[in-house]
């Protein structure tokens, strides 16, 4: 997602202020003013929390990790052996990523990450989870019909490929290391990071080369 798109969205949603507030919007507004009045929250700190996950922490972090693992076999070894330490080399660590595990996809093994019970997701490398990841269809189906879900999302998994679904039921947080696409030989880490997507790092998509125009 480009910054441009992002800001357009933000502007669009900020216009919601002009309309009458809906149920949850009203309740949240009342709650914030109550908690502020009681000295329990500081609205400026709330802004800072929001800004962190809107602008600083997101899937571009994870893409850098994947790109380095593709470009540097020694780094990849470290990443698979101790994901937390290897990811922290970039300065990415903290809340909802304290105990990281990296799962390597191969031509014969495909890993898919889900949290059937809530929405566990590796924040420091992927940011906050998208709606579909938190939604009932994905949480219900990823474990019972991963091939069906992948197919709907555009990836047909051959019969001889093993699908491993990881249900994040504890505090381990999983990041998929996708297969490096052919045709990227000699690319720099920066170029590689450009093509790595959030969905590939969750395990529901492959990394593909951009279509030439």
């Amino acid at each position, binding site marked *: 997602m480009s910054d441009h798109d992002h800001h357009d969205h933000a502007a669009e949603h900020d216009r919601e202020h002009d309309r009458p507030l809906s149920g949850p919007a009203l309740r*949240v507004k009342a709650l914030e003013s109550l908690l502020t009045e009681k000295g329990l929250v500081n609205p400026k700190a709330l802004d800072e929390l929001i800004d962190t996950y809107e602008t600083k922490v997101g899937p571009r972090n994870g893409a850098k990790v994947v790109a380095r693992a593709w470009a540097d076999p020694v780094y990849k070894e470290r990443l698979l052996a101790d994901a937390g330490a290897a990811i922290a080399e970039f300065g990415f660590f903290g809340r909802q990523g304290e105990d990281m595990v990296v799962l390597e996809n191969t031509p014969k093994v495909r890993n898919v990450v889900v949290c059937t019970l809530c929405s566990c997701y590796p924040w420091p490398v992927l940011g906050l989870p998208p709606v579909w990841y938190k939604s009932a269809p994905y949480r219900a189906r990823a474990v*019972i019909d991963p091939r069906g879900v992948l197919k709907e999302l555009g990836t047909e998994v051959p019969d001889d490929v093993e699908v491993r679904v990881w249900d994040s039921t504890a505090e*381990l947080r999983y990041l998929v290391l996708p297969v490096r696409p052919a045709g990227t030989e000699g690319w720099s880490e920066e170029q590689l990071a450009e093509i790595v997507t959030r969905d590939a790092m969750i395990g529901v998509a492959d990394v593909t080369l951009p279509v030439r125009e």
Partner: protein
Amino acid sequence: MNGAHDLGGMHGFGQVEIEKNEPVFHFPWEKRAFALTLASGFHGKWNLDMSRYAREQMPPAEYLATTYYEHWLFGLQKLLVEQQLVTAIELQTGHAEAKTSELRALQVSDVEPLLRKRRAARLDEDVPPRFRAGERVVARNINPTGHTRLPRYARGRRGVIDRDHGVFIFADTHAMSRDKKPQHCYSVRFTARELWGTDASAHDSVFVDLWDDHLDRA
């Protein structure tokens, strides 16, 4: 609890739809609900497992009919009242009856340290593991009315210990009584056929993170 949050294996919810160029938040109130939850948690009156349990207690029909941050809002309001940071009357009227002055609110300068703590649920306690990688186990058939991280679809199913993650806080007791009950947490591998029957792919499996107290030797 056997709640609506425990969704693994259910049918009928429809297709997974990925929104292109999805914003981090869809409405301003979602941002505030998210931040209020983290900032309220800063007071240390509850832990993450209690937060999850609070959301799970949203009545099932309501849980399935509402959006993600509405679950968060429900959980936050419940915890604020239960842990006596606000009263039910204050929540209803939106006006403070008294200031909770002894507590220090999260400040801007606290945000980075709060989000960049490197330890959460992992513990240093020297507790021996009950199982080793490669051992066959069966997930207990438990149906507690309280919090559990053992999903329904895995209960009573046989699997193999894939790896030992080390010693962690046990979420099930931590949510109910703050008892950390340090014990090993493992990735347990269940074949798709063990979980879903012979129609499932013979090659596939589901890995579930479970603790010693969820497992018996098979």
